[in-house]
């Protein structure tokens, strides 16, 4: 009888230890953080918050002083607090855009930038109202001298295009690198360097004020 009771107790201990291992293993697996992809979303939308109708009257030939409203948005899916900067660069057909293969930014000059701290899963959207406030045209080349962005005037450097065709604004996403203590183009995730940039083309064939409607 005593032997049977001891046998039974030993059996219970074995059952308890087995259950304990199973339960704790389950708890461990459940409590493990779910692996998720780390990335940023970056967009520029038109005045209707859609990826269309970027220019008034759907005419990409802009006039002097004509305000154009876009929305720049960044969504942080990096899992941590991030400091991001959107750099706006002025370019034309000849100045190259960012190099995706090598992860290099465009050599075009930066005209303005916006920065913001973002929490994980936070979306930051800033309105971008711009207009060309000063431009000249001579010997078949149109040069934009000053741009108005969100009611602030920014001088443009070396921003010209042949006959006013194929100007472009390049939007680059930069992030703060805590190891180098500077902003860097793109971001690093899972040992790889990722970048995000956008560009919108426009023409300015007649660098003068908008003609009155007929």
């Amino acid at each position, binding site marked *: 009888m005593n032997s049977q009771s001891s046998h039974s107790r030993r059996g219970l201990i074995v059952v308890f230890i087995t259950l304990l291992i199973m339960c704790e293993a389950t708890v461990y697996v459940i409590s493990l953080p779910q692996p998720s992809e780390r990335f940023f979303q970056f967009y520029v939308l038109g005045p209707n918050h859609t990826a269309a109708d970027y220019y008034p009257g759907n005419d990409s030939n802009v006039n002097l002083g004509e305000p154009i409203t876009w929305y720049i948005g960044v969504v942080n899916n990096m899992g941590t607090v991030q400091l991001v900067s959107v750099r706006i660069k002025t370019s034309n057909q000849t100045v190259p855009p960012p190099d995706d293969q090598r992860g290099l930014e465009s050599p075009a000059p930066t005209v303005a930038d916006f920065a913001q701290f973002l929490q994980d899963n936070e979306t930051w959207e800033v309105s971008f109202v711009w207009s060309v406030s000063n431009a000249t045209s001579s010997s078949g080349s149109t040069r934009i001298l000053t741009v108005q962005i969100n009611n602030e005037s920014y001088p*443009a450097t070396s921003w010209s295009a042949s006959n006013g065709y194929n100007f472009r604004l390049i939007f680059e996403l930069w992030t703060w690198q805590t190891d180098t203590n500077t902003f860097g183009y793109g971001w690093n995730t899972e040992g790889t360097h990722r970048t995000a940039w956008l560009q919108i083309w426009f023409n300015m064939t007649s660098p003068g004020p908008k003609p009155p409607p007929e």
Partner: protein
Amino acid sequence: MSRTSTTAFTAAVLAVLIIITLQPVAVSETTGTLQPGFNQAIVELRDAQSAGATPSELTEPVALLNKALELNREALILSASDEATRRAGLLVQVDQILTTVETQAIELTAVSSQRKSMNEFLTYLSGAIAAILGTIVYASAMSLHRKYRIKRTFSMRVSRK
């Protein structure tokens, strides 16, 4: 010697000047220069997040950082010497905000870490409780099974063939 070398020197200086002039100039990178405190604040906030700080707990320090960023931007735009006092004042404000954020982040890290440890302990404790309950259920089932088996043994009939 002197004429040739002077020409060469002038050409070299001109070449350097042309190269410098042709470099793209960043016109208004107002966020290019940030005080070192910003970096430290980001590191501290990430530590707090790793320790388990929730998004709602991070809302206030992140909002303060954005305010500091705005003031920093404002200070960098002021470049004229007559606005030096205002600029210095803004930078002092930025420093104060960054100190506040760092303090908040350190406190958050401590609180979140403690909470995380407690949650982990309770989670693993619940696993142990589940194991104990499982063992009790098993023991009860075995006991019932044994009782049923004894009853069945006694209710067996011996019949002659």
